């Protein structure tokens, strides 16, 4: 399988006031052409930062090391027109469409903008394609919607506009950054289904960022679990749930209540999620992990191949199969 996107040892520090704060540490990630990769983790674990680094949208003053390769091109070395061309190939669907669509421009203008400016498509042709794209995402009366302004559309409809727009420019990779979080549950399911279908039709690769482990499992081929700025496990989505390799992944799976059974108490992970810059040396999850040993806190954990996946836990092979069921607490 040739990979479209390869992220190797990506470390990112952001400038906060006078000091640099690490937000990502040696992140490894690989997405094949046509593959959907889920990226899950708690808030602040570095999911969005990873996506921003891939699209080269990190804030000014960020220092980046490691490598990002997209279709054989070194993304971190790009600038000027090449960088814009890269961004055009990587479409981002953001979490909050209302903030991410210019409020003073019509939907027509927003949707057709990159076609008109980057692909030299005529205004009429751009509008026609936009109308078709709106129909594809299940929006009725596209001609009317195109004439409207963002504030005249509902959140769910705007997110569909966002998705339709992202697909219009025929990207090769879709970065979906919690694109359904701001929507109500029913709309969420609809939008998700539409996006999944359109992506499969086009054979588009996707990095799907979410808090929802099960949603990632349902939509993605593989799932990547992040904790405190590191990827701790990458696994085929179908097996992550039943056979997690990292104690943190297992704890996340356990924390989610099962719809088929009643639980007296939900299983929570003790402690609070850490950011990369405040994480201890050694295994970053060790302070909250039921299986940690002295070795875990004294040694940096390596990125190991195991059972068709990768995991950042020295005890993974030994613990495999015993992690589920709240044994970590």
């Amino acid at each position, binding site marked *: 399988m040739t990979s479209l996107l390869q992220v190797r040892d990506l470390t990112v520090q952001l400038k906060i006031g006078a000091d640099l704060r690490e937000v990502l540490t040696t992140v490894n990630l690989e997405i094949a052409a046509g593959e959907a990769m889920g990226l899950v983790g708690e808030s602040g674990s570095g999911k969005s930062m990873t996506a921003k680094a891939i699209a080269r949208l990190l804030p000014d003053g960020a220092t980046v090391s490691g490598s990002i390769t997209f279709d054989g091109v070194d993304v971190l070395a790009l600038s000027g027109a090449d960088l814009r061309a890269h961004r055009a190939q990587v479409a981002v669907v*953001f979490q909050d469409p209302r903030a*991410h669509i210019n409020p003073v421009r019509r939907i027509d203008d927003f949707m057709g903008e*990159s076609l008109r400016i980057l692909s030299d498509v005529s205004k009429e042709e751009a509008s026609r394609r936009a109308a078709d794209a709106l129909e594809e995402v299940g929006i009725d009366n596209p001609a009317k919607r195109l004439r409207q302004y963002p*504030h005249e559309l509902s959140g769910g409809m705007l997110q569909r506009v966002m998705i339709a727009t992202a697909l219009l420019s025929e990207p090769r990779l879709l970065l979906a950054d919690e694109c359904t979080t701001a929507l109500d549950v029913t709309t969420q399911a609809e939008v998700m289904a539409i996006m999944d279908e359109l992506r499969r039709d086009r054979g588009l690769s996707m990095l799907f960022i979410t808090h929802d482990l099960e949603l990632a499992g349902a939509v993605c081929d593989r799932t990547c679990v992040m904790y405190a700025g590191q990827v701790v496990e990458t696994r085929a989505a179908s097996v992550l749930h039943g056979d997690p390799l990292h104690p943190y992944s297992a704890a996340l799976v356990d924390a989610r209540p099962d719809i088929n059974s009643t639980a007296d108490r939900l299983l929570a992970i003790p402690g609070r999620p850490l950011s990369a810059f405040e994480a201890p040396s050694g295994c970053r999850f060790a302070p909250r992990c039921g299986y940690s040993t002295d070795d875990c806190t004294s040694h940096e954990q390596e990125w190991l191949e195991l059972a068709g996946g990768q995991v950042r836990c020295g005890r993974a092979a030994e613990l495999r199969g015993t992690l589920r069921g709240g044994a970590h607490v």
Partner: protein
Amino acid sequence: MLQFVLRRLAMLVATLVAASFVIYGALYLAPGSPIATLTGGRTPPPEVLLALETRYHLNEPFLVRYWLWLKAAVSGDLGESIPLHEPVATLIGERVGVTASLVLLTSLIILFVGIGLGIIGGLRRGGVDNAVLLSSTISAALPSFAAAVVLQFVVGVKLGWLPVLGTGTGFSDSVKHLILPAIALASTSVALVTRVTRSAVMEEMGKEHVQTALSRGLPYPGLIRRHVLRNAAIPITTVAGLTIASLIALAAIVETAFGLNGLGAYLVQAAMNKDFAVVQGISLVLVAAFVITNVVIDILYAVLDPRVQLGSRAQ
């Protein structure tokens, strides 16, 4: 849109009526009498006094006088200057051109320099931005009468580049005479517009929708124009509009300093001469200009921001 404009025009008329009442009332309450000015402080014989009072309706009750004045004003007759025996409308007509040109030229300076510097400061970090901030701080701290004196001394007297006094004759000479007054008048206001533009541009730059545009690989200049400047135009219009509207009143100081025969300078002079009809007339014109400017801003605002509902009632 039409309905919106009509409603704003109705508000304009209401504002003018209210303002005219306040203006008329304020002068009625003001100490001193036009007769005293007219007679040079001497007490005239009773029959002369009576004749004068009848002529200028000075012996009528306040509301009757106000009504007579308002009725005439609506038909374009703003009364007659007591000391000059000339129609106020003529006196205003002779001077309104100077003030209008001054305000226009000042507005152009404010718009070009203020918005230009603000955009540069907002888009660039570091040295350029600091220079913009520093220059706008200095210019904000400089009141226009002080700027007038400095400009007259340095540019007019020392360098001899531009005339410092009078209105001038012919188009190019008139414009030359207006340059220094316009710069003096613009000095304080331009800083405000610069600051607001700078922060509006900076704020828009940080907006998520700009990041979306960036993520789509759009070329930078177009992105700035279509997303940053277009959106920043909304707060900039508000401030620039209010600033320009206020120039109409502030022009008096600069006109006096540069010996320009404009409405503002004449208003000050008329007030000192107790020339009530002139003061009322000019005040009414100034209020009308101010309110009309605001109506224009309101309409522009609605054009710039589709979220402003034209159909809804003005609050």
